[in-house]
């Protein structure tokens, strides 16, 4: 490395650091006053505590035993004698276990089908100037502004004889226009020369998607997959509307019935012999924790892709 290149490098580094300082300081290079910074720190600390504290209380209560729950008269902030009885009880079979299976099934099948449809559609819309892509794109964009409304959607599902079928929770939600647009923008940002090269090598559209586009788009596929998975997992209204058979309920409806509406959870005590049944509140909080778990587990892995995936789709240019 020659001396001149080092000399060239140094100012660039310094100016980048300065740039970061500018950006970090927000409006202006003038540093904020000490009280302003303290107020800011306190504000953010409180905001984070308001988000995190409920989760700690919920998890603690799900692990607490009868005595402590009745002592506290409700939620427990820290379990003194942690026990997994509540979890054992809800996993012992019965309503909650079945609902979990239903939700997992719908989420897995739905997410895979949604990702497939969305990727194919977004890819077709990302090829410039292809036949019919303009009206197709308009058609997708319009769904972002107009939704058909509850009754027409219900009638559609009814006419297709999907009422009381798990497919009613999947098929109408297969395509989300927002996700299509996010993916399409990502595909458009890939270096188009790669696609041209693949075409010259004789690749068809399917091979270009499979071999060139998809391997480069793992970030956006992960994010869009998370969005679909969260939507399927969190959905309670479609089930309320389309599934009247309580044995087919997904976990969100069980959660609503036993936690929000406060119905008593019948625990099959023969399953856990010789043990006092866990307190009702612990059972409720255990269901809540279990329904939260998949999201909390997936979140850290996908979180770093958020900005990349979303921003490309949303505010570009």
């Amino acid at each position, binding site marked *: 490395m020659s001396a001149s290149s080092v000399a060239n490098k140094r100012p660039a580094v310094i100016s980048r650091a300065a740039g970061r*300082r*500018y950006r*970090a300081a*927000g*409006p*202006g290079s003038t540093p904020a006053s000490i009280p302003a910074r303290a107020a*800011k720190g306190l504000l*953010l600390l409180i*905001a*984070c505590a308001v*988000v995190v504290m*409920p989760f700690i*209380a919920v998890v603690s209560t799900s692990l607490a035993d009868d005595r402590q729950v009745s002592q506290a*008269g*409700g*939620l427990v*902030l820290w379990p003194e004698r942690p026990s997994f009885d509540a979890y054992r009880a809800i996993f012992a079979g019965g309503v909650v276990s079945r609902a979990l299976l239903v939700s997992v099934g719908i989420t897995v099948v739905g997410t895979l089908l949604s990702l497939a*449809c969305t990727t194919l*559609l977004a890819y*077709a819309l990302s090829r410039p*100037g292809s*036949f019919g892509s303009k009206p197709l*794109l308009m*058609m997708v964009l319009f769904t972002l*502004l107009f*939704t*058909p*409304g*509850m*009754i*027409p*959607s*219900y*009638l559609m599902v*009814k*006419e297709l004889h999907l009422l009381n079928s798990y497919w009613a929770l999947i098929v*109408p939600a297969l*395509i989300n*226009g*927002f996700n*299509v*647009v996010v993916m399409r*923008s990502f595909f458009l940002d890939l270096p188009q020369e790669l696609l041209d090269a693949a075409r010259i090598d004789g690749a068809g559209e*399917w091979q270009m998607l499979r071999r060139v586009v998809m391997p480069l788009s793992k970030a956006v596929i992960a994010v869009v997959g998370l969005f679909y998975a969260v939507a399927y997992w*969190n959905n*309670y209204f479609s089930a309320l509307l389309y599934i009247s058979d309580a044995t087919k309920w997904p976990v969100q409806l069980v959660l609503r019935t036993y*936690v*929000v509406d406060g119905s008593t959870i019948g625990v099959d005590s023969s399953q856990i012999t010789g043990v006092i049944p866990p307190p009702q509140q612990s059972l*409720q909080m255990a269901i*809540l924790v279990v*329904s939260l778990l998949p999201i909390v587990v997936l979140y850290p892995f996908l*979180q770093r892709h958020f*900005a990349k995936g*979303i*921003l490309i*789709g*949303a*505010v*570009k*240019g």
Partner: protein
Amino acid sequence: MALPATAETADSAPSPPSPPAARRRRTWRTRLRHDWMLLALAAPGAAVVVLFHYVPLLGNVIAFKAYQPYLGITSAPWVGLDNFRVIVTWDPAFRNALLNTVIIALIQVIFVFPVPIALALVLNSLTSERIKRVVQSVLYLPHFMSWVIVVAIFQQMLGGSGLLHTWLRTKGIEGPDIIGNPDMFKELITAQVIWKDTGWGTILFLAALSRIDLSLYEAAAADGASRMRQLWHVTLPGLRSVIVLLLILKLGDVLTVGFEQILLQQNAVGVDASEVLDTYVYNNSVIAGNWGASAAVGLVKGVIGVGLVLTANKIAHMFGERGVYQ
């Protein structure tokens, strides 16, 4: 969500000038032969969009029919505008739902909409990237919780046997009833919306903030602008187009106020305080069986929503903003 506008800009940017022009000269038949594979790839997704977004629009005809579930749509007799009677005669139940909807919508635009902007400004002014990232990760999380979970958590924290009341009781104070109190319902759902989505709402604003030209700040500082002046003259103008865009999109579903959220809590506070247009439609159709009248209300609501977007976009253009579409 700045989607439609970006799609247009994205469209023109990457396409090399020659191939599309060459393609346009060919007849549609050769183009179809050339691109059939792409159309085949798009087909499943497009079919779902048509089937569940466009065909159901036809279902709105039952607003003009005396629909009965066992009769089917086609054999139900036409009744003209009869179903719109509840709206025209200002039926008390409908009036209540409409008033609640408008009040909640106003609360959301005035008190909920600015919160993510303020939070984004605070986050943007943090010096440490690491702290910023941690705070963001924590505050994004509630967005991914279902409404059922959010409502359950609020009940557990603020309800009669919740954490807040238990703690107050140890201090010998009997706190106010927050959950299940019709008088505090609007405050409650506003707090829930803020808790759930403020963090997530900052994403777009942070992106817009990171795009502001830093030399503008330098120039302002050189001219002696204080931090407040810089915020007013550089930062806020930089955010303006994103704010306008999100406001327009918000207006489109302004009459769709927290349907799932409200339905979950309706039992606790009663219909008077909590009925909005969406719950009105649900309770009157699926639950009570007045399909035609509910569809009429739903249809009017949808038309007003579309009208609001078009008007807001027009107003945005008059002020020289780009809006959602050109």
